[in-house]
């Protein structure tokens, strides 16, 4: 066991790091789903946009300016998407909102395609994060080590926000019962906007960490991490933040072990590489069939 662990250490490390990044994206999904019952298909593309904007901004500005600007931009983008594409459909059937989300995703990807000309953009090297370090014979980057800690800190802060502030209480109320909380005087539009802004902020942080590792941004590079983060959210029990984080770490680690070349069922690792993405979805289907409420999800009761 220790031998296996030592051999695959670099994959474990990158798994934990990717897991942390998925966790930050997954929180955006799970919070929005908890409140609006909507799979925000555009969330992965918001994450990609944050990466692209960073590429363009850092070309002319120092990091101390461009990083905060990226965060502000992404938050504004999340806010704008909610106001333009989801708010007008508040009373429409759920399917139309989901279609609108798919439309936004399509729009963002095509916009990115237009502005980049379809070329992969090289992500800037952020001085401190990109430095490489060696741990127990495995060489990796600082970002790999920073990610899990940063993720945990942000999640703790978010949990405190939700548990102990007024807006957090309002969020919990809205996710429990949309209409009653409205009757209680909660301004739901404000609560929903803030939820989207928090989700986008975390996605922007995730994009800083993720693209530092992967070094390039393409218009479609948001969709896969986005879908995986969503799977993580489902696995953890949609609506539950700790669930999403744990799910994301599990998915990140499994995926990297598969990618890494461990021999499974007698077929050497290189044969399984194509399945590192497919694994997530197979996992999703299994969870949905076996335990649709996820690890920490509440059992929903269907009303007739």
């Amino acid at each position: 066991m220790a031998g296996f662990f030592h051999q695959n250490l670099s994959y474990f490390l990158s798994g934990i790091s990717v897991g942390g990044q998925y966790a930050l994206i997954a929180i955006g999904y799970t919070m929005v789903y908890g409140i609006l019952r909507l799979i925000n298909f555009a969330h992965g593309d918001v994450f990609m946009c944050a990466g692209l904007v960073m590429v363009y901004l850092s070309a002319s500005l120092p990091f101390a300016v461009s990083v905060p600007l990226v965060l502000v931009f992404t938050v504004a983008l999340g806010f704008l998407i909610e106001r333009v594409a989801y708010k007008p459909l508040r009373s429409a059937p759920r399917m139309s909102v989901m279609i609108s989300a798919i439309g936004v995703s399509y729009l963002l990807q095509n916009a990115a395609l237009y502005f980049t000309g379809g070329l992969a953009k090289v992500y800037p090297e952020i001085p401190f994060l990109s430095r490489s370090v060696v741990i127990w014979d495995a060489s990796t980057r600082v970002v790999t080590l920073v990610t899990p800690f940063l993720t945990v800190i942000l999640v703790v802060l978010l949990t405190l926000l939700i548990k102990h502030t007024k807006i957090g209480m309002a969020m919990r109320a809205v996710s429990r019962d949309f209409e009653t909380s409205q009757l209680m005087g909660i301004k739901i539009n404000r609560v929903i906007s803030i939820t989207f802004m928090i989700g986008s902020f975390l996605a922007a942080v995730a994009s800083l960490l993720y693209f530092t590792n992967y070094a390039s941004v393409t218009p479609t590079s948001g969709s896969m991490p986005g879908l995986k983060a969503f799977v993580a959210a489902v696995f953890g029990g949609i609506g539950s933040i700790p669930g999403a984080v744990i799910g994301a770490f599990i998915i990140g680690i499994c995926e990297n072990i598969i990618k890494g070349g461990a021999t499974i069922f007698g077929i050497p690792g290189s044969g399984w590489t194509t399945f590192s993405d497919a694994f997530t979805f197979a996992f999703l289907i299994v969870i949905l069939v076996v335990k649709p409420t996820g690890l920490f999800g509440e059992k929903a009761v269907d009303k007739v």
Partner: protein
Amino acid sequence: MDREKRNHLIRIAAAIAVVYGVILILEFTLRPTSILFTVLRKGAIYSLVAVSMNLLNGFTGLFSLGQAGFMLIGAYTYAILTMPVSVKQSERVYKYYECIVGFDTGSLIGLIAAGLMAAFFAFLIGLPVLRLKSDYLAIATLGFAEIVRAIFQWDVLGPLTNGANLLREYKDLTRIYLPFTDIPFPPTLFVFIVAGVCILLIVLLINSSYGRAFKAIRDDETAAEAMGINLFRHKELSFVISSFFAGISGALLAMFQYTVQAQQFKTMMTYEILLIVVIGGIGSISGSCIASFLYIALSEWWLRGLDMGEFLGIAAPDLFRSGFRRLVFSVIIMVIVLFFSKGLMGDKELSYEHLKQKLSSLRKKRRASA
């Protein structure tokens, strides 16, 4: 059968005959490389897959996003089956693998097999997945399509699927002949006949008692169940049939493109088909068809200038560069989704009466404003 209904059927038959007649005439008058043929063929193929998606989303109320996966299964089945044995054994296509399929079939058998294979996979995946509710079903079917794409690119299956490399030299549109002769079949007409027959079958299904059961499930599951409709069986039936036709449209797409590669059947493709269904109107067969042709004509032909630097006589190479067409397109789609959520047709069908009504209401409006 009362007279009105008979007149209605005669009108429809006449309209269809006119469409096919025009296509036959076009095939013999225009040059074969004309852009019009591209639009017509691709439009017909997308019509079929859009209608098959509409059967699920619009008529049964199952929000499924697996269409690209089933098209991929169909396309590969068709390509592998109809590729001549001599090509399979040469190094022209299977360069890195020994092909293990030692026979080839005609294109009709290939098409049907493509549908059956897609339907078979749909049956298997439907067993667990169709028990899920709306958005969970969407994400599970989306995931299934991704899994299919990975499996077809897996190099262990290389001797069957040629790994991640493309397949070609199978019986594409230039290699189909009239039965028992070697006179080439007019390609656009072929696509229209296959797509037309399939869509007709779907329409017949929707108007049958099964179709009414599907609609009952869409409108209210609980009520439908209380009326004695077996929910799971009907959902599975609708899913399998829809996938059958998606498989056939995948095979047609493979014929149309001359080459096929798993890489191309991404989630984006399913999104495009879904957006076509939405533009046409969820729950309208004719809407889906009209929207497909419009979508293809716009994206392949009329809006081309947006990518080429000049549009409607305005030359602005800096603005109208590659990708602008799709950007404009997605904005149009968002406008439709947000402000015209009924789409072109709503859940109505295109008919003579419908057109007459539209015209008279337009005329009334004009009179009122004058």
